[in-house]
């Protein structure tokens, strides 16, 4: 346990009314408010009350669907969402310590806008921004943007052909992360000089074009935004398979993984390390956080019954890429401790029901983790990077200016 440091990193994944499709029908749910700022602020403040490291906010340009690749016409599940980066910005002044990690996709967005947006979130949150970079595979997005042709992964037969289509999207995402990182370093920290004798506001020798040329886009730079408090806000990638592991290994700070047992944790961590070797990662190794979908009740039987009730309402059993923990709080704590010993740095918990399971995490799970000495009882330090044990990186250009 010691080799991973004393604290388990702990984040929570916010999405709609929670990760069970019928969660919005719970008596404690607030389904009429999922498009209101107050709902999201309350969730963020709850997470902050639990001294959690970060919240992520899911996003996509397409409507939610019960089908993995196609829209549907179901009316009995949450449909609709707001821009995650703007929700995170709205949360920033309403919180003081919590890391804010919106999902921003790389497939149709402008890399320049994305880099500037994440740096700006870091400014308005005073060093608490992260970015969950996500590839979009829903083909409907192509028509929403209408400006480029992309092959539909779902239309290609599974196997090498589909893999090739998907790899193009991941390569583009890698370019998008690279552009953001270069933009974040395109201003040296001391570029603003306000030198009255020479009349100069900035030292332009400390501003650098990025001159990125890729297969899908080129970006000249420098950024319009000065280097932000964290310098390089943490980049997060959710990975299930090799292209995503390699995307994470090449450009991310945190990889979110979805193991389904202790042995699987070991296997997934090996895949992460293999991907790091394959891409020749430099710098600190990826932090590995496991995603768990959690449904908590005071005892395990109640939790199982609650899940069954939701499944009934939805008309089908809960399906998830991540392991589902249906347990009492102590049961979840045991899972977290065991899995962490198998080689994880932390967890991103996906509450099945919001706000109920977030409340349970904060009020029942976190205190037990604190008792075990594996969670801090108060926030220390100012930035998300600091909380995750990541140094503020030196600018790649530092000292290069005249």
């Amino acid at each position, binding site marked *: 346990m010691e080799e991973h440091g004393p604290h388990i990193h702990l984040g929570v994944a916010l999405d709609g009314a929670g990760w069970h499709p019928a969660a*919005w*029908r719970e008596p404690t*749910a607030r*389904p009429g408010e999922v*498009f*209101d*700022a107050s709902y999201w602020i309350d969730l963020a403040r709850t997470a902050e009350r639990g001294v959690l490291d970060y919240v992520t906010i899911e996003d*996509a*340009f*397409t*409507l939610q669907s019960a089908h993995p690749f196609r829209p549907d016409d179901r*009316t009995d*599940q949450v*449909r*609709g969402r*707001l*821009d995650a*980066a*703007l*929700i995170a*910005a*709205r949360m*920033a*002044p*309403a919180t003081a310590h919590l890391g804010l990690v919106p999902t921003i996709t790389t497939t*149709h967005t*402008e890399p*320049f*806008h994305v880099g*500037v*947006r994440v740096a700006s*979130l870091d*400014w*308005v949150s005073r060093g608490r921004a992260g970015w969950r970079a996500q590839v979009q595979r829903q083909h*409907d*997005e192509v*028509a*929403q*943007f*209408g*400006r480029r042709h992309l092959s539909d992964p779902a239309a290609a037969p599974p196997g090498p052909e589909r893999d090739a289509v998907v790899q193009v999207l991941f390569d583009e995402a890698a370019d998008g992360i690279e552009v953001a990182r270069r933009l974040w370093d395109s*201003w040296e920290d001391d570029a*603003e000089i*306000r030198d*009255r004798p*020479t*009349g*100069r*506001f900035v030292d*332009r020798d400390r*501003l650098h074009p990025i001159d990125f040329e890729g297969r*899908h*886009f*080129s*970006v000249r*730079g*420098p950024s*319009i*935004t*000065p280097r932000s408090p964290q310098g390089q806000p943490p980049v997060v990638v959710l990975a299930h398979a090799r292209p995503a592991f390699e995307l994470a290994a090449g450009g991310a700070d945190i990889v979110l993984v979805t193991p389904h047992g202790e042995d699987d944790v070991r296997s997934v961590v090996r895949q992460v390390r293999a991907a790091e070797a394959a891409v020749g990662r430099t710098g600190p190794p990826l932090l590995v956080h496991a995603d768990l979908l959690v449904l908590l009740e005071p005892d395990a039987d109640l939790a199982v019954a609650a899940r069954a009730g939701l499944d009934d309402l939805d008309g089908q059993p809960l399906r998830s890429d991540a392991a589902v923990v249906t347990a009492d709080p102590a049961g979840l704590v045991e899972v977290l401790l065991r899995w962490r010993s198998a080689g994880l740095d932390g967890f991103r918990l996906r509450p099945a029901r919001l706000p109920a399971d977030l409340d349970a995490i904060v009020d029942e799970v976190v205190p037990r983790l604190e008792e075990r000495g594996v969670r801090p009882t108060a926030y220390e330090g100012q930035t998300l990077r600091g909380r995750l044990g990541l140094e503020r990186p030196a600018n790649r250009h530092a000292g290069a200016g005249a």
Partner: protein
Amino acid sequence: MAPKQVHLAAHFPGVNSTTIWNRPESGSQIDFSSFAHLARTAERGRFDFFFLAEGLRLREHRGQIFDLDVVGRPDSLTVLSALAAVTERIGLAATLNTTFNEPYELARQLASLDHLSGGRAAWNAVTSPDAFTGENFRRGGFLDPALRYERAQELIEAVQAVWDSWADDAVAADRAGGRFVRPGTVGRFVHRGDQFAIEGRSTVPRSPQRHPVQIQAGDSDAGRELAARHAEVIFSRHASYDAGQRFYADVKGRLARYGRRPEDLKIIPAAVAVLGDSAADAQERAHQNHLDQVSPQGAIAFLEQVWGTDLSAHDPDGPLPPFDPDPEGTERITRGRVRHEKDPAAVAQRWRQRAEEKQLSIRELVIEVSARETFVGTAQQVAEQIDRHVQEDAADGFILVPPLTPHGLDEFVATVVPELQDRGVFRTEYEHETLRENLGLPPVA
């Protein structure tokens, strides 16, 4: 008849030479606390909205990043969403480029801001086809300049199609009936035109204003026509009384052909107000502002924009260059900012004449020609002038551009706003929840 009501907006001091960065009280242009202070001050003054400009590439001068003005700013929408947390009623306006943004994403972001701010979002749609800025974007700089308004107009229509894709009552959130959204296909939008062919289903339900308020700043004939058709606020350059009246009459006169009433479009020029305990005191403060805005180096750079050539060997306290501008140089010397001078030779001729007549140095001349004050005087005098401009149809109000961050509006709000309120031409409390209503604009069907 009741007097016309004045509308006021606050422009965050921008990346340009009017912003004074070299005084002890000049604060950060990037820390969120600066934005929060100015927005809260404007809200305390019951301003209609807070406004952010945009620049998607750092400006360059003679092939290098221009370093004499404030440089660097955050993403507008991010700042405005954060400001929604520290303000309650003031409108939040972002300048957003129609060339380097795609309609679906833009519509989604603006509608999200409208939800997150409880109906306070606005956007200033600007067009810019320049290849220089395009080097930062996927689409590059290939847009034919002749198509800029065509693209802008179509983008606005496409954005509106996305906003209209959810019925007002689409979200049922009916637990007992098991219906989150009402039957029917929520979010379906289609737009087909020469510039955009997009379709799909939007993720954002109808927002509180239905359509965030539409601001435009175009000044050409095509720009005015686009504004007459779509804009709800015009951010104009014509703040002086005479030019203001001409512009006002021209643009309001174009509205009828689109079935719109004069009050459906507010004309709000940018204005700089300098206050003092007396008229003379205000003049003295305006003069000090000029000295801080136009440094010796800044004066030379200003002149180089017209002359199109390196003038660094000239003494800012000496006479203007005796030779004529290089017309080709003018085209390429400055990049990333709007140029208003179309005929550099004539401008240079005029300036040289003026400098000779008044015995002005380069710096003194630049101060004279770049001075942007609209209102200089005591709070009472400034309030009177603003009121007169509005009552006599030179404007519907003003976007105030303070030269100082973040305290540049403190005095105006403390002294001029009460004068306007005493005159019965400015609100003492916000009367409505949404920006659209506070501006007196018609609801969106």
